[in-house]
């Protein structure tokens, strides 16, 4: 498996968005997947609809490394605008594939690279009859060329086409034609390359699913029983709700065409958070989904949800900040704003998935946590996790029934003697009981407010009652420490240095640690899965002299939280910060850990 010449290749396709390249890229990716080879795709697209540079990196890795690869082995330069920089990105000894319908400009030629032309434009011009389709179909030609060069069988490509365009045989045919054109051209030209080959792995990728994090989150929300979704479109979170819209109807439409869900496109994020709060207060499982700018706009609402203790779920798909920043790049730089969002003293629960199964799991669980702890719960995602194709084990069916928390029904109210104090810490865990509007019991009603209130929910300005309320809210957060998902300790607690990673950094960190181990530098690894963190994290800090904390932000936002949580170990924490907006690579982590040596 570790023969470098086999199943270890990173292909980058440089094109324009809106040019039909997405479909070609997808076919290439799926074909490698179908060969049974572990693979991942990273789509670097512009914040624009049509005509700007786009890069798509497909990595095949027999060893199962699915982060973005540090080096590009093969570059398809189908975009003249960026061709210059594109060839510069290819590693020495790498391969450049270009459209030789026109001669390759001299200045693109590097001694260290190999060039193979495929006259894609001429081929489609001669073979594709519908003129409007030609620009689009040109992209598919390179798929054929690559297939021939690296050994993707034509029948696999055919299968993938059938799978993708199942109901449109004409489209299948025309695409297959173009693939064949590229394939045949390479074959007849006798072109070769020495970078390696793709070899099908029998039973490889069996029981493996292929999806995007936003889809997994959408499914998680549906299986988590979400009924009210209020949202406002924003990249890269839009597709999360759009997937809910596309999928929920199937499970939740009654015979008489009634919907057991409601999805509202709000007028802005101030409205979406308020709608979620209104719905959560009334007992619905409610959520919104947004990215940085929307999260900023929701701050006041988040404080209200915190202080009135309304269950509410926030999917935050992070992108490059601050401000509008880079809407189509990835980052983990909204951690503080999630964890300590809104004015005043607040502390919020943050769930941090790292792959599609955990996205699904933590998404349905988010609704349970929100109701159990009666508070905003954040599912922290990012563009890399949310919008890039990832392969993984199948999504696992929820292993727990709905946890509605301490909601009192009419019967329960009756059973406890008809008394109810909304904000009384009845169990000593900081979590009070809750009733839902419409509950048909005279003691059910209470009057929630974002201003100071006592255990009866009545307004008060009493300093001691106020302090007691703040303390109880903090206690609730402390209770949560042992309830939120525990960290995953990938390697046992040795005595060397440790590494903590979370979210989309986890995958490349694993690869980085393998590499460091090969260099005789073994490191223990802890995957953080939630805030607040619990004793296991503390133990990990205690067990290691030096802990590298991998974060995708400039300021070490997670480090700030951990240092404050565990001041004794503050100096042990060495943030490894990668924040240029591209998905993290193992090489970056290796370098920074070595640099911090």
């Amino acid at each position, binding site marked *: 498996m570790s023969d470098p010449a086999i199943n270890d290749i990173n292909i980058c396709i440089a094109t324009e968005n809106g040019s039909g390249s997405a479909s070609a890229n997808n076919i290439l990716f*799926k074909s490698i997947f179908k060969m049974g080879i572990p693979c991942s795709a990273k789509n670097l697209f512009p914040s624009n609809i049509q005509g700007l540079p786009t890069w798509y990196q497909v990595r095949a890795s027999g060893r199962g490394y699915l982060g973005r690869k540090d080096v590009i082995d093969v570059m398809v330069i189908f975009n003249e605008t960026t061709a210059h920089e594109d060839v510069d990105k290819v590693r020495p000894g790498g391969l450049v594939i270009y459209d030789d319908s026109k001669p390759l400009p001299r200045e693109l030629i590097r001694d260290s690279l190999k060039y193979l032309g495929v006259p894609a434009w001429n081929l489609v011009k001669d073979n594709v009859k519908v003129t409007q389709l030609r620009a689009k179909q040109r992209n598919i030609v390179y798929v054929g060329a690559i297939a021939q060069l690296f050994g993707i069988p034509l029948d696999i490509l055919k299968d993938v086409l059938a799978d993708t365009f199942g109901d449109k045989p004409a489209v299948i045919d025309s695409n297959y034609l173009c693939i064949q054109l590229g394939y045949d051209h390479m074959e007849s030209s006798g072109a070769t390359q020495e970078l390696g080959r793709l070899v099908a792995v029998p039973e490889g990728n069996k029981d493996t699913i292929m999806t995007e994090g936003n889809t997994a989150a959408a499914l998680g929300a549906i299986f988590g029983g*979400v*009924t009210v979704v209020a949202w406002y479109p924003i990249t890269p979170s839009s597709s999360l709700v759009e997937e809910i819209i596309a999928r929920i109807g199937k*499970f939740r439409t009654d015979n008489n065409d009634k919907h057991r869900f409601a999805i509202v496109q709000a007028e802005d994020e101030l409205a979406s958070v308020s709608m979620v709060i209104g719905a959560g207060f*009334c*007992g619905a499982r409610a959520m919104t989904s947004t990215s940085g700018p929307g999260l900023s706009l929701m701050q006041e609402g988040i404080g209200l949800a915190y202080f009135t203790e309304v269950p509410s779920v926030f999917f935050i798909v992070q992108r490059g900040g601050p401000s509008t920043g880079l809407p189509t790049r990835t980052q983990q730089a909204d951690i503080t704003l999630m964890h300590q969002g809104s004015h005043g003293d607040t502390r919020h629960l943050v769930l941090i998935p790292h792959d599609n199964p955990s996205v699904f799991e933590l998404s349905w669980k988010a609704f349970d946590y929100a109701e159990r702890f009666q508070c905003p719960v954040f599912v922290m995602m990012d563009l890399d996790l949310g919008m890039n194709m990832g392969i993984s084990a199948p999504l696992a069916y929820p292993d727990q029934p709905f946890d509605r928390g301490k909601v009192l029904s009419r019967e329960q109210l009756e059973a406890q003697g008809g008394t109810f104090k909304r904000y009384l810490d009845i169990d000593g865990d900081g979590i009070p009981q809750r009733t839902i509007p*419409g509950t048909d019991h005279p003691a059910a009603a209470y009057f*929630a407010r974002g201003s100071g209130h006592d255990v009866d929910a009545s307004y008060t300005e009493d300093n001691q009652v106020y302090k007691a309320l703040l303390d109880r809210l903090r206690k609730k957060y402390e209770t949560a420490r042992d309830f939120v998902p525990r960290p995953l300790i990938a390697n046992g607690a040795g005595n060397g240095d440790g590494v903590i990673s979370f979210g989309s950094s986890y995958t490349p960190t694993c690869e980085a640690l393998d590499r460091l181990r090969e260099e005789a530098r073994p490191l223990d690894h802890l995957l953080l899965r939630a805030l607040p963190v619990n004793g296991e994290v503390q133990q990990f800090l205690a067990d290691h002299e030096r802990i590298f904390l991998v974060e995708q932000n400039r300021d070490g936002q997670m480090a700030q939280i951990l240092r404050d949580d565990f001041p004794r170990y503050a100096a042990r924490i060495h943030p490894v910060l990668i924040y240029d907006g591209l998905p993290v690579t193992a090489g970056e982590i290796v370098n920074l850990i070595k640099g911090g040596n």
Partner: protein
Amino acid sequence: MSEPAVQMQAPANGLHLIKKDYEGAQSTLCKGCGHDAITASIVTAAYEASVDPKRVLKLSGIGCSAKTTNYFMNQSFGFNGIHGRMAAMATGTGLANHTLIPIGVSGDGDTASIGLGNFAHMVRRNLRITYIIENNGVYGLTKGQFSAMADRGSRLRKGGANPWEAMDIISLSLLMGATFLARSFSGDRKQLTPLIEAAFNHKGTAVLDVLSPCVTFNDHEGSTKSLKHIRANRDALHDIDFIPDFDQVDVDYDEGKEIRVRMHEAGMITLHKIKDHDPRDRGRAIQLLEEARGNNTFLTGLIYIDENMPDFAEVEQLPEIPLAFLGEEELRPSRQDLDQINASLML
């Protein structure tokens, strides 16, 4: 019930509740504040229309006006949220449970300044709600700055005249497609109470712009929202009755003098014409509002109504049982469903 009521006992309504059952906490507003008069009308309206307090949801933002919801219907759930977002919050409650009777109380600042965008969009959606704006032209709670509904030229107790034209929230709501629009005055309970009763029974957004003098910051000479000024510049469209029970409605009425509108939920509103206006006539409503604007008068009464437009819950195709009360069986797809999804994500 056929047994004779015991003497001295307060009269009960259709739900066997007495008026006291509709009261709330002791008001902490200034003595004489218009908002308290509105509270009284709400209490009377809910009592008379036999509204079930357990189905009522009281919603507000922030302001003196927002406190109002605490002063009626103690037995009802309430949510006093943040400044300007009540409309959006109400939209969420309406999705979770469209069978509740939401009563929103807001201020002119809360609705027309900070909350304008969310308010307008709530109206567009025709969310079922009784939305009362206690309009005093100022920010009471922050001590008397002008709101967007202060009239041009109106003066602050200390300080200058307002240079901007008042926002007419009724015209705006009409433009946004509101289906129940009324203007009234806190001091005119005879007019206000039946309007609120009707609003409770309207299936859609009912906007009531209620002039409500702020006796502390905006009741002086030079203010166009003073008690005196409002009284002098009111212009009523009609006298109003609300009849909760259809059976009591006598069948023949004088079309020339009266207009009757049957409310969606229950009851009927009868308008005894003063001006000639059928509130189902949108064009004429626009014209009257424009005239009132020109004359600087406050046109009061039921200005517009449309009982046929589907409300938000209907558009959203909500089921009979509120979403909030659906359980795991109704909501979580099966294991087989997930298997199928997983299969579809394989190749």
